[in-house]
């Protein structure tokens, strides 16, 4: 017995020497907590080849990542506001007179109220609307607190993201349900703004789920009919099936009311519309082997706007016009119209229903240590019902098919070559190929030089291709039975815009500072611009359109004119200390026409200079603060935009975390436009003022 004690002592000595102090002599007879299975059994493969992304140093493009911490520190409540932190990007709140409540977000110019030259994906689902081409940001069923990160690929990237990855691609990725747990509530109250969100997430064995419901209320700008009330639900699940498969589901629902129209429009008067959107997505990830994965995803989305609008009194309008008219013939005509109108107020059905069904498969694989490839294909159908804009109650269908491939070759540590291409066929512009290639040179792990050339197409959207937007009112004055104004009459002869972008990039790490510089030259070809189209009056219809050389003309679109966008972008992320971080972004973008005359103010549709900076500091365990500054040069934006001056905006955020037993959280106070500069954004009708709000976040 003595012997044994001694031996046990030796064992303890041995174990502590190995830092494995052991507890000896448990008496209870229980199941062993560990066994060889913990060490030897197969595990589900998580970071498979398709989940692992290229490191930024190997990437063929410049990438801006907005992570959770940056989103939190920014104090933003509206998703598109975050893009002010992307060099070369322009953000204009509540632009335009249709879909008033939406931000215009664009990159490298050509900005109108509905910029459609970026691809925008939420968890792999394309959300740009084919009607105008932009994104209805305020309708996305995404809470900022659910976003894991936003990756912005600056520069065309059709080979990876499809045709509309023209100037840039925004990829919004929400947290995987496995990465969240428990309940969170977030309440916001401030000037013209109230929000409430609730999230619950959990996991049952291999099945993880997250559901978020939210309510947003925003009164918009002072002089605008741009209020919005939005309710939404978003739910995601991730089911780990065996060792090699994952099944993911996602659903989203949005509904709410929005202000729309303007007093300046005779027909689309200020009124409210109702939006109802939903989507469902299923994704299957299958590991074929250690070096290859298959992913198949399918989704369906539907966006519906219920919108019935009553015009102002047509009679009053024509009488008013007549009173101002000096030409006696025209004056008499206008007076006659006013007195012979069959109705006084037009009631317009401006319902819009668009649906998208998409199925995509992709195969990712590696060959040896140096080759990595992804290829795949997708089929999509968009349908569009928009009786006012398309001039028909028929639903239009738009089909798109594409195949794509991308190859990354790393012959050694110093070099990475990327090449890829996409072949797309669609109903609007036929078949096109968009190739790309780049070469990254890494003389040391901290420095990368990148040379790249990439091309992409922008497929025209409905407003450029198929609009037949007209207003008709009955008239009782033989031989006329109606008056008509044709706003847009597309002839359909419009092709895709093409971009060829060349760039030299540099990525460097100097101690705690990461730097990304990009010199770019975008050659833009066949830019779509407005064109007058001669129209003729149907029998018995009195056309009110403007005239050119004795003919009636309406707006149409045509490819006309080339341009160059050139400049430099700088992005730095500097960790000044463990508690202090400084982000600085700057862009110089110069646009010039190289052929024909482009749209009005085309070259002014991007501020020449824009910068953003954000300083965050953690004062102690609980307190932290952010000061952000944004400066945007003067612009004259296209479509519904006006000349506006330099914008200077400063935001301040102070936050305090707290933790008590099972309740944790944060209180934060945000002041946007701290110095209350009454700047104009996008157009003279949007005047920003200081706004403050308080947020309470509870985790339980």
């Amino acid at each position, binding site marked *: 017995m003595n*012997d*044994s004690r001694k*031996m*046990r002592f*030796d*064992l303890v000595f*041995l174990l*502590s020497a*190995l*830092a*494995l*102090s*052991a*507890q*000896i002599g*448990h*008496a209870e*007879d229980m199941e*062993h*907590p*560990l*066994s*060889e299975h*913990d*060490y*030897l*059994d*197969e*595990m*589900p*493969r*998580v*970071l*498979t*080849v398709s*989940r*692992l*992304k290229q*490191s*930024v*140093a*190997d990437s063929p493009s410049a990438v801006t990542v907005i992570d959770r911490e940056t989103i939190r520190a920014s104090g933003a409540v509206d998703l598109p506001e975050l893009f002010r932190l992307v060099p070369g990007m322009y953000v204009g709140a509540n632009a335009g007179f249709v879909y008033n409540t939406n931000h215009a977000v664009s990159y490298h110019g050509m900005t109108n109220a509905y910029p459609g030259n970026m691809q925008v994906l939420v968890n792999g689902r394309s959300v740009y609307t084919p009607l105008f081409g932009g994104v209805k940001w305020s309708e996305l069923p995404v809470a900022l607190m659910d976003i*894991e*990160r936003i990756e912005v690929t600056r520069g065309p990237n059709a080979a990876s993201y499809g045709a509309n990855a023209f100037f840039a691609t925004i990829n919004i990725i929400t947290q*995987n349900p*496995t*990465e*969240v*747990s*428990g309940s969170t509530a977030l309440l916001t109250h401030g000037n013209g703004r109230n929000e409430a969100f609730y999230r619950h997430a959990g*996991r049952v064995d*291999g099945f*993880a789920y997250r559901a978020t419901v939210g309510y947003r209320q925003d009164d918009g700008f002072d002089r605008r009919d741009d209020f919005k009330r939005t309710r939404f639900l978003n739910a995601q699940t*991730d089911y*780990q099936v065996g060792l090699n498969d994952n099944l993911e589901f996602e659903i989203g629902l949005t509904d709410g009311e929005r202000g729309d129209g303007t007093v300046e429009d005779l027909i689309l008067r200020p009124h409210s519309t109702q939006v109802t959107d939903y989507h469902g997505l299923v994704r299957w990830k299958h590991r074929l082997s*250690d070096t290859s994965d298959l992913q198949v995803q399918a989704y369906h989305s539907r966006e519906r706007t219920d919108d019935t609008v009553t015009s102002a009194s047509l009679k009053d309008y024509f009488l008013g016009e007549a009173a101002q008219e000096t030409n006696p013939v025209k004056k008499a005509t206008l007076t006659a119209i006013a007195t012979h109108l069959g109705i006084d107020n037009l009631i317009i059905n401006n319902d819009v229903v668009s649906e998208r069904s998409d199925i995509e498969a992709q195969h990712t694989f*590696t060959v040896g*240590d140096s080759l990595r490839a992804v290829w795949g294909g997708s089929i999509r159908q968009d349908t569009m019902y928009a009786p006012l804009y398309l001039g028909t109650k028929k639903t239009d269908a738009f089909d798109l098919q594409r195949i794509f491939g991308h190859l990354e070759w790393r012959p050694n*540590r110093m070099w990475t070559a990327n090449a890829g291409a996409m072949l797309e066929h669609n109903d609007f512009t036929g078949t096109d190929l968009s190739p790309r290639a780049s070469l990254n040179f890494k003389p040391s*792990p901290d420095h990368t030089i990148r040379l790249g050339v990439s091309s992409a197409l922008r497929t025209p959207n409905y407003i450029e291709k198929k609009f037949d937007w007209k207003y008709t009112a009955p008239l009782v004055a033989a031989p006329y039975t109606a008056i008509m104004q044709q706003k847009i009459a597309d002839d359909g002869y419009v092709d895709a815009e093409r971009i060829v972008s060349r760039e030299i990039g540099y990525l460097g790490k100097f101690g705690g500072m990461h730097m990304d510089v990009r010199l770019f030259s975008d050659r833009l070809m066949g830019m779509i611009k407005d064109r007058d189209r001669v129209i003729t009056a149907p029998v018995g219809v009195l056309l009110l359109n403007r005239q050119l050389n004795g003919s009636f003309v309406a707006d149409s679109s045509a490819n006309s004119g080339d341009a160059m966008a050139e400049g430099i972008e700088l992005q730095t992320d500097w960790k000044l200390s463990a508690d202090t971080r400084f982000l600085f972004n700057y862009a110089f973008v110069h646009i010039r026409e190289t052929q024909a005359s482009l749209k009005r103010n085309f070259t002014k549709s991007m501020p020449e200079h824009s910068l953003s900076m954000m300083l965050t500091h953690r004062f102690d365990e609980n307190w932290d603060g952010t000061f952000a500054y944004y400066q945007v040069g003067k612009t004259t934006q296209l479509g519904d935009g006006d000349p506006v001056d330099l914008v200077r905006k400063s935001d301040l955020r102070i936050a305090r975390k707290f933790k008590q037993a099972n309740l944790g959280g944060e209180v934060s106070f945000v002041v946007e436009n701290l110095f209350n500069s009454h700047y104009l954004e996008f157009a003279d009708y949007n005047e920003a003022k200081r706004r403050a709000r308080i947020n309470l976040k509870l985790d339980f």
Partner: protein
Amino acid sequence: MAQAFTGITIVMSAPTQTNKAFVEEFKHELVNSNNAAYKVKVVDLGESEKLSVAENSDLVIALGVKALEVSSKLKPSTPVLGVFTPLPVFNDIMGKSDRMLGNFSAIVLDQPYSRQMALVKTMLPESKNLGVLLGSTSLQYGEGLKDEGEKTGLHVNTENLAQESDLIPKLNQVLQANDALLAVPDPVIYSRETVQPILLTSYRYQKPVFGFSQSYVKAGALAAVYSTTAQLAKQAVELANKSQQSQNLLPPPQVPKYFSVSINQQVARALNIPFISEDAAVKKMLQME
């Protein structure tokens, strides 16, 4: 003590591939060690729980926890060497049996922490802070880990989990504050169900995970120290030969003497970690030992 020679009996908890491979490697190593005196008999517990055949063996090698538990009930005069057994379980079993050191030992699955720290330093020479999540099973190792970290210039920060629902928040805390996560076996923390949240979250933070098994590396951990079946078999043969020379007396439990390193090169590349081959990593670690 002396008894009739009957050879070595290998007891398998189940006829798994690993266990069968061990038997093959063991026989192979035995031949290599020029020991022709031993005969090797194999018993599969899955087929018969009766271990009487193993009584009076010169040495019983128990593969897996179940085999070790059953073998611990053999006559104390029959020496038992556990293989594929975690150390805390070995201690548990010995505590519950009439066994004593000398006739009961193991080559445990646990790699020494010094070796794990050496791996961290080999893969991430600039790392300073190493995060560790501890549960009720692994809680006892916290201090030892910290001490071993100090020696390698790594500050080991531990977070204790009271229950599984703490996993995500604690994981976030650890990943925020450290350069990497070192996984220490604990059934509440590292299971088949939690491997996805752990690896996805760490990847989101762009922080590598050091696993404790080859499977964890295949799943997406950056690297792990482990011993191959052949390496464990080689050590077992050495022990068998030694005990044969010392009247079947077994040395105290040992950590694996020979080891390998498994690196997920795809993960390394995605995390922008400079390339190092598995062999080169082992060499570098041996220099550090």
